């Protein structure tokens, strides 16, 4: 998996995301003021740290893990036990601001413990061992009910704990800014880690372990250090999750959580530092907003993921970046119209496909399929042929034009260099 990243000396201009994203993070709560939106933003921050830690494995070291939630979840549990101890002591002890550090330490500890035998080989063996560990920890939550809190999980109270700066964390806005602060710290640390010799060796181990060994670095050791550090940041995210949600149950160590971080990171783009940030944000927003609009959101997620794996393995950020480079190099000259045409036809196709899926869900899932159903602002009867015909027609025409009219046209223009996907 080749990874074009910002290599060599860092251009100051390329640091613009470091200014824009934190500024946006500071301003967003003033635009979306509802309590729900602020909770969502906090979750986004936690998901971003988690996804960045995951990409230390997948993107930087080439290790595909199916059990990263183990470190996130165990970090969360340990932090929760500490928070409960603080609550029990009547709000005396560790300040809330430092609680994520407890999670980070726990993550690091479990990362070192499980890392010793997980990282001996990369590739499929590593993937399976992490899958096994994930399932092991999740199913042992039924064994150790004292630690995992059984079915109900564990509760804590963030407001009943001291604060370093005398902030009252009963307000979710205060919690949000705490999440932003930690996310910024974590992002800077993870970014700087990439620039250390360790970060470069991790890339070398990913691309060619034999040669890395030949220059005198043991790939197992490099993987182990990356793995432990990644687990540490995952634990940090888990500790923050305890503060935002004040409840943990066994789901946080489960396979769904591990799958979600993989999906988010990959959708964003594993070859870019900003990829996991974009991916985790998209997944969090979609998960929360889409699930209130449609029952089919898991299906959309799965389809989006498969499309990315098949046609755009560099993720959303990768697609935008290559198109941007192409545009800057003049690759869009004289064919911008065709490219726009491809995007528009593709969007029409996607629109048609969404209509088909929504119609199917209404037809198969609702008690009365013939009840009037509002699809994209039009009230239709799903038991008649017409809406089905129209939806399929839109999808087929859109994708058909894109694949069999637009794409050949573009390849004729650009000298028959075929590229995966459209824009």
């Amino acid at each position, binding site marked *: 998996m080749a990874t074009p990243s910002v290599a060599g000396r860092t251009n100051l201009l390329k640091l613009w995301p470091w200014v824009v994203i934190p500024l946006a993070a500071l301003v967003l709560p003033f635009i979306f003021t509802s309590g729900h939106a602020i909770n969502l933003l906090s979750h986004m921050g936690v998901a971003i740290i988690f996804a960045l830690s995951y990409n230390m494995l997948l993107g930087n070291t080439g290790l595909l893990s199916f059990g990263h939630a183990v470190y996130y979840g165990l970090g969360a549990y340990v932090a929760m036990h500490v928070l409960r101890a603080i609550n029990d002591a009547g709000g005396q002890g560790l300040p809330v601001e430092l609680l994520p550090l407890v999670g980070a330490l726990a993550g690091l500890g479990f990362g070192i413990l499980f890392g010793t035998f997980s990282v001996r080989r990369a590739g499929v063996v590593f993937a399976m061992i992490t899958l096994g560990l994930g399932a092991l920890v999740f199913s042992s939550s039924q064994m150790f009910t004292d630690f995992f809190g059984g079915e109900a999980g564990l509760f804590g109270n963030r407001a009943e704990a001291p604060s370093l700066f005398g902030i009252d964390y009963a307000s979710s806005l205060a919690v949000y800014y705490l999440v932003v602060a930690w996310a910024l710290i974590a992002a800077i640390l993870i970014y700087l880690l990439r620039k250390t010799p360790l970060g470069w060796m991790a890339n070398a181990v990913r691309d060619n372990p034999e040669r890395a060994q030949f220059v005198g670095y043991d790939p197992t050791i490099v993987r182990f250090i990356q793995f432990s550090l990644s687990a540490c940041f995952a634990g940090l995210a888990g500790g923050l999750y305890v503060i935002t949600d004040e409840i943990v149950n066994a789901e946080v160590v489960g396979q769904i959580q591990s799958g979600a971080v993989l999906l988010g990171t990959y959708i964003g783009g594993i070859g870019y530092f900003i990829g996991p940030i974009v991916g985790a944000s998209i997944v969090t927003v979609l998960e929360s907003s889409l699930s209130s609009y449609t029952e089919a959101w898991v299906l959309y997620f799965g389809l989006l993921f498969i499309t990315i794996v098949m046609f755009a393995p560099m993720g959303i950020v990768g697609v935008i970046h290559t198109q941007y480079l192409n545009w800057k190099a003049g690759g869009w000259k004289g064919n911008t119209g065709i490219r726009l045409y491809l995007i528009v036809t593709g969007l029409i196709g996607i629109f048609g496909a969404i209509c088909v899926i929504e119609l199917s869900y209404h037809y*198969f899932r609702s008690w009365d399929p013939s009840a009037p159903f509002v699809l994209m602002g039009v009230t239709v009867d799903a038991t008649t042929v017409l809406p089905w015909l129209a939806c399929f027609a839109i999808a087929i025409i859109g994708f058909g034009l894109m694949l069999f009219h637009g794409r050949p046209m573009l390849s004729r223009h650009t000298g028959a260099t075929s590229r995966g996907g459209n824009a």
Partner: protein
Amino acid sequence: MLETIAYSIFNGVLYGTLLFMMSSGLTLIFGMMGVLNFAHASFYMLGAYFAYTLGLGTGFWVALFLAPIAVGAFGALVERYGLRRVHQFGHVPELLFTFGLAYVIEELVALFWGTVPVPYKAPPALDTTAFSMFGLNYSVFKVFILVVAVAMFVGLWFLLKKTRAGLIIQGALSRPDMVGALGHNVPRVFMLVFAFGCALAGLGGVVGGIHFVTDPGMAFMMGPIVFVVVVLGGLGSVPGALIASLIIGILQTFFLSINFSLAGAFGALGIEDSGFFGVLWHMETTRIAPVLPFLLLVLTLIFRPRGLLGKREA
């Protein structure tokens, strides 16, 4: 005690043979193509649902043959238009593709058949009692499961070791270029192996769907255990998969049927039921049972990565 042992062995073997039916296809696909098919349990689920729907029209016996064929055809399409495309990027994208596919299949099944279990039952001919043991009745269907599993094992072994097709398949794995040079279409061989593996999972689903529950969660439940069987048995080894299935089946049933804890056997010895070791001392075996397969998976990967009968490492 004898009753418990006999009961665990019989039910364990039954569970083990079901596991074997689910995982034999994956051991072929994984061992031969190196593709760790995350969606394998989803094909198992499709087998159950196809058999249920087809069975409504044609009856169980026709569906028993048609459903695996339908699942195999679907598997062939997946390989041809999905996996083959990502194959060029390497093994990790293949894994990711099947991972996404598992989500999509589960959602589609929930879409067409609903989220609640469907009433998929054994035909009346198989629903009668075959024999009784210690006051428990065993239906003809349970014997039927054993028969199907044995037939599957023998058929697979014969196909791979004694036929020309098996020879080509084995050749295409170790020396694809050579097999291609001899005039065989290697991508098509891979497609057929994948389809065949999926059909086997489908057959497992036709039978397993009756024994367990047929609902959209069944793939997610069985998925990880299927991996355990494949890894423990050894890559590409059908006998290994059988042995591993039986081990897991018997072990898990045994742990579930005896009620044993160290504290129960040796007395509490003043060890309180708290703290890590205290909890372990008082742990009942029934609570350990769900963890066992995964413990086996991790231990196998650490200490014997090639599994029981595998020739090369995972």
